[in-house]
């Protein structure tokens, strides 16, 4: 075995590290564009899935431009910070809702600009609100699609970084997500009450869905995320809803009737009769 001097060892390792650093930096730079595109496509696919449009990654951009008409960012006081119509998406303004880093905005609290996506599908306008919270092991994410009344949920998608396989990661299953369809996020006074994720949820309730057995911590995280992130849009929801009282009266009434069992309709009718 040859004898190497200390000087040689230092120089050798320094040179090796320098070569590797240059190589990796070069590769990372040249592949960055493709990687960013993959991440953008995935985000678009997830937003589209919340309004029940399933597309391949290649078609994500075109489908996104087709269904999403407007991107807003709003503050918790309801004021609108940015507002881009679909025609401007291609210019990729840096402060568009799509580029918002939710975690950063959440840290800014009331100063944060929170994204809202406006979509149009089958002639119906609606809103998608993206969210980020904490599961058991890492971040959990959601896109909640709401009808024009900003109350009734038409679809949700959940994703996560590292929840337990087979337990917490069941939040991504169609079965769990389907529970949310038709639920409402506002109480009768228009206050955000969110949809609770709890054990033995009351099937008839508009504000409860079943938690995942074995995934309690993840379910709690999703529950907390929904409440906290929807709460930020309270003022925005108020201002939108006050502008469309007429439409609003019609749309949810139909939906409630569809979702309720006969028994509940009777109960509801009884309540109305009492009021009168």
């Amino acid at each position, binding site marked *: *075995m*040859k004898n*190497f001097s200390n000087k*040689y*060892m230092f120089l*050798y*390792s320094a040179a*090796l*590290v320098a070569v*590797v650093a240059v*190589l*990796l930096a070069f*590769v*990372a730079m040249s*592949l960055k564009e*493709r*990687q960013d595109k*993959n*991440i953008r*496509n*995935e985000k678009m696919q997830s937003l589209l899935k919340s309004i029940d449009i399933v597309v391949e*990654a290649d078609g994500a951009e075109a489908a996104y431009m087709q269904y999403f008409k407007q991107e807003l960012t709003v503050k918790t006081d309801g004021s609108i910070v940015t507002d881009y119509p679909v025609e401007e998406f291609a210019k990729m303004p840096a402060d568009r809702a799509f580029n918002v880093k939710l975690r950063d905005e959440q840290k800014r609290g009331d100063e944060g600009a929170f994204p809202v996506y406006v979509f149009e599908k089958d002639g119906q306008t609606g809103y998608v609100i993206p969210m980020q919270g904490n599961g058991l092991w890492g971040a959990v994410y959601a896109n909640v699609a709401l009808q024009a009344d900003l109350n009734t949920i038409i679809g949700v998608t959940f994703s996560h970084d*590292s929840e337990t396989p*087979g337990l917490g990661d069941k939040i991504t299953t169609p079965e769990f997500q389907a529970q949310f369809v038709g639920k409402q996020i506002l109480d009768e006074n228009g206050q955000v009450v969110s949809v609770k994720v709890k054990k033995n949820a009351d099937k008839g309730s508009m504000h409860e869905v079943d938690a995942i057995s074995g995934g309690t911590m993840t379910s709690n995280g999703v529950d907390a995320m929904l409440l906290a992130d929807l709460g930020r849009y309270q003022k925005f929801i108020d201002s939108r809803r006050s502008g469309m009282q007429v439409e609003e009266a019609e749309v949810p009434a139909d939906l409630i009737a569809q979702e309720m069992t006969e028994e509940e309709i009777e109960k509801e009718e009884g309540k109305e009769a009492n009021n009168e």
Partner: protein
Amino acid sequence: MSSKNSSLITNPFSKNNPITVQILGICSALAVTAQLKPAVVMAISVTVVVALANLIISLMRNTIPPRIRIIVQLVVVSALVVLVNQVLMAFVYDVSKQLSVYVGLIITNCIVMGRLEAFAMTNKPWDSLLDGIGNGLGYAIILVILGFVRELFGSGSIWGYPICEKLGLYNIGYENNGLVILAPMALILVGIIIWIQRSSDKTLQEK
């Protein structure tokens, strides 16, 4: 190709298989084989890394000071793994998300370091490359077997194609076995493969 060289490729398939005989790289073999596709991508990634790492270390072997050889090996392996990860993220994004941390953990995969220490440090580049490819493929074959069995019985599909549904098995009361998807079943399957291999190959049996 001489018989010595071809045995470098074929040995890891049988009496020197990295998983079933050397019992190396078990962790990733359990983690990524719930479905066939990630198992195959992982197998290719490891094969590429172990082959190139063997080649590069073998080329450098006479210049590497013995006292810092492990560090040098680690730097080379890490660089290759980061490269592989970047390429996966750019070209097969969905698979790279499924593999998540396990690509990064190729760095600590015992097969890679094991081959560098045991072979590449003392052998010529061409032999080392063959040895790397052989061991990578030996690892790959076990991953593919595990991925195939686990996806078929656990999810009822092959390479994402829902074969059990197409055959109408669910209609006659067949159900997927949830246990097969979990890691313990992968360990049991590895055990079964080892059992079969040892009972057929007398040289592997302890006296």
